């Protein structure tokens, strides 16, 4: 990362801006506006990687498998939950904190993945998506040859 003095602004502020730009370039959220399925809230995600794959995890308590739609296209992972807003009838609510209704989230993937090998597992309300990196994207050991 190169730190440039732009118009004499404080380097710390610039560093923060660089970081934001870098991170949003990697995993920014596309389609902030006009995405019809974004409900009143967006689920939080955790993302990590190893040499072979990117892993995306979300906590989706109460969501059933058939309410979930996961797709990988154009370097983006999209996760949609479509469910009716259910409300208990004839009861008195004392607390209403849990999410209801549909929501969606799109993540830009930092490397190419193999869409055919993407796997998703929903267990105990935790969704784990494994996106194997495409061959070209995997780290490769480069042999150093010394010449005489």
């Amino acid at each position: 990362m190169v730190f440039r003095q732009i118009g004499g602004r404080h380097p710390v502020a610039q560093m923060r801006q660089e970081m934001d730009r870098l991170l949003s370039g990697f995993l920014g959220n596309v389609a902030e506006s006009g995405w019809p399925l974004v409900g009143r809230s967006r689920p939080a995600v955790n993302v990590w990687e190893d040499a072979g794959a990117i892993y995306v995890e979300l906590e989706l308590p109460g969501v059933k498998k058939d309410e979930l739609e996961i797709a990988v296209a154009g370097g983006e992972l999209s996760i949609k939950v479509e469910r009716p807003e259910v409300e208990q009838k004839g009861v008195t609510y004392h607390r209403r904190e849990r999410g209801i209704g549909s929501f969606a989230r799109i993540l830009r993937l930092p490397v190419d993945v193999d869409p055919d090998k993407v796997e998703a597992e929903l267990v105990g309300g935790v969704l784990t998506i494994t996106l194997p990196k495409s061959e070209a994207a995997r780290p490769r050991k480069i042999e150093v040859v010394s010449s005489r």
Partner: protein
Amino acid sequence: MADEKSIAKPPAEEVDATELTRSGFCYRPSVDIFERADELVVEADIPGATGDYIDIDFKDGTLTIHAKVKPRQAEKQEYLVREYGVGDFRRSFHVSEAIDAGKITAEYADGVLTLHLPKSEAVKPRKIAVRAD
């Protein structure tokens, strides 16, 4: 990323240090609580808990839920994006209704814990006939 509206997990309020035998974060689960004529129902979001380690205690009118959650990644795992932490869930409620503690039932499915707290006989609404002369 300050403008994101992602759901943040609220940390639990003062958790007794003596209660936790291992260090780690403890979170306060979101709940829905509603009342029917004959019972109180509590639905708590506790994703990632295992059925064996969910503790439900009802004593002196206080309901306490404590669920142990096994860490899903190594402690020193580095993340590309980390918007939530993984840890135990704990929350207590004062229940003003008189509850038949012996008949409390609990189910855990899809990461949601559902508790049914039947009201004691004495508290159930009873229709009182009005005799008018």
